[in-house]
């Protein structure tokens, strides 16, 4: 199935790029840096994959790529989703204006970013992981207790706070700002993300990882060349007990101490890098899984400076707005105080 997907890509690339470019699509002959490494440098975007779900919806079982009428309907539905998201994103406190979302709803015919397992779905958790996840969620709920949605910045997610988007989240397309810059030297590779401005400077010289006692938001990465593919391995992540800290609880893995991510960057042609990300954690999942993105070259020379934190007026408005609302309507606070008994279901529409 994986092979079939790649064939389908090669086919669509052929149609799109014309026969003359086909030879260039062979990953065996990438351009080289002056020191002989495959050249991945430049500014790349995952915009073309915007709107493709991480996991394949049930109705497209066995169809990694859609065509014909089914594709038409799929794109129509995504266009509706775009319109709804743009209004939502541009209309609520803390989000940007509508034009930030102009890239949403691209024309990709893929039905999931996950390419392996072949059904395009994250494999089931092991029983051990399931138990750990349930315990973690319970801890989380106890911690949240009767807090409101904006008692403090800590009640907001990390992206709202401009702290981080996590890995792999930072590489996956969002509504806008999906650009990544790659700079190489003989001994290092730097991967920069426009969104929130992130930079990973990754040694290529075979040095050991940081000590296990140093845990960071983006972990600790080491890279190597496997023929023409740049392989980046990352461990030493901070313990993510907060379910808001991830693009999805299940993609995080249940055990922070064994949380490891492997990314592969392969230049497929002048304008394309195939980016694959694999999670292989037998303690968490019953089998490994892989998601894939095609990154397209942009004419950009550098990333625009995304001053997420410096310009986070949204956070000021969310918090000051919540305080103003409580002042105008003290009932809001009273209602929260009433439903304090642990385990009781909340009927607060805010929650």
């Amino acid at each position: 199935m994986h092979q079939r997907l790649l064939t389908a890509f090669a086919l669509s690339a052929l149609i799109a790029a014309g026969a003359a470019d086909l030879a260039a699509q062979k990953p065996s002959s990438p351009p080289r840096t002056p020191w002989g490494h495959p050249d991945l440098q430049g500014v790349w975007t995952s915009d073309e994959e915007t709107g493709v779900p991480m996991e394949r919806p049930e109705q497209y079982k066995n169809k990694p790529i859609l065509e014909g009428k089914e594709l038409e309907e799929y794109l129509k539905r995504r266009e509706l989703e775009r319109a709804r998201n743009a209004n939502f994103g541009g209309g609520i406190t803390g989000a940007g204006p509508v034009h930030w979302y102009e890239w949403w709803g691209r024309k990709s015919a893929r039905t999931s970013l996950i390419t392996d397992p072949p059904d395009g779905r994250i494999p089931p958790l092991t029983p051990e992981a399931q138990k750990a996840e349930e315990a973690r969620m319970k801890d989380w709920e106890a911690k949240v207790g009767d807090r409101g949605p904006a008692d403090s910045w800590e009640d907001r997610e990390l992206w709202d706070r401009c702290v981080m988007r996590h890995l792999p989240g930072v590489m996956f397309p969002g509504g806008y700002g999906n650009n990544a810059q790659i700079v190489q030297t003989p001994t290092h590779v730097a991967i920069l993300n426009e969104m929130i401005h992130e930079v990973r400077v990754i040694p290529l010289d075979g040095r050991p990882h940081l000590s296990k006692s140093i845990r960071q938001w983006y972990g600790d990465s080491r890279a190597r060349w496997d023929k023409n593919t740049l392989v980046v391995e990352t461990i030493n992540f901070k313990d993510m007990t907060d379910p808001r800290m991830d693009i999805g609880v299940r993609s995080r893995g249940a055990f922070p101490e064994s949380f490891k991510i492997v990314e592969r960057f392969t230049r497929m042609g002048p304008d394309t890098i195939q980016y694959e990300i694999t999670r292989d954690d037998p303690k968490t999942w019953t089998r490994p899984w892989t998601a894939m993105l095609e990154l397209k070259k942009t004419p950009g020379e550098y990333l625009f400076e995304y001053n997420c934190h410096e310009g986070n007026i949204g956070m000021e408005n969310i918090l000051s707005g919540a305080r103003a609302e409580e002042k105008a309507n003290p009932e809001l606070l009273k209602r929260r105080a009433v439903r304090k008994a642990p385990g009781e279901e909340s009927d607060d529409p805010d929650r």
Partner: protein
Amino acid sequence: MTRFWQGLGTGLVVVCAAASADRWAAPLLAQAPGFKAPRTSWGDGKPDLSGIWQALGTANWNLEDHAAYGAPAAVLAVAGTVAAAPGGFGFVDGPIPYKPEALKQRQHNFENRWTLDPELKCYQAGLPRATYLPYPFQILQSNNKILVTYEYAKSSRTIHMDKKVAAPVPQYMGQSNGRWEGDSLVVEVTDFRDESWFDRAGNFHSDALKVTERFTLTSPYHMLYEATIDDAKTFTRPWKITVPLYKRIERNVQLMEFNCVPFSEDMIYGQWKRR
């Protein structure tokens, strides 16, 4: 308290005036005898500036000559000695030539530095300050771009060596276009926003800022960093900062993550937290 600040301000001006312009002519900062900068491994003949570098000294506390000084009582009450500024030589070729109005603004900034300094809020530092913050930075020298990444606030900038690039909008870190002049990397940085400061003492600039930087290796472990500051809205003439940089040579040294956003939120948003 007010008298304390007035005294401090006067002292600051007096020591500034005493700053010597010819300190950097001293041979210490010249190239070590017989030293020739190493070249890149791929044979383009350019000096290889790669590595992790860091400034020592007190430039980030105060670019001008100054004796050690403290902080407002409220800050000393929680941070004690750590809140003090160590005394230091100026890194400037004389007192900073402020226009009269701008000098008043600098005094205001100094007096309110514990609430106004963008470094407190984890805002990107701008240039030249990012170079001499008390955090390391890394130069990644590639064939057509040079990337500089800073540990503080995971900030970075691309120096364009292959073509001249203009910024569509002003940026904290500006827009950097570089060229080689002999063995020196010369970078012209333009398109700045006006929010950033030069140090913790409130020295500042406007959006008319243009910085011309010069990086010159002087030994295997030292690099001379010179930055000419040109901002006609704020200063009466261009002036220059000279800061020696030291190579970090610990085995396997790497930039650590310093994502300071979570450290700044209490200060920025604390007033809106539910009590």
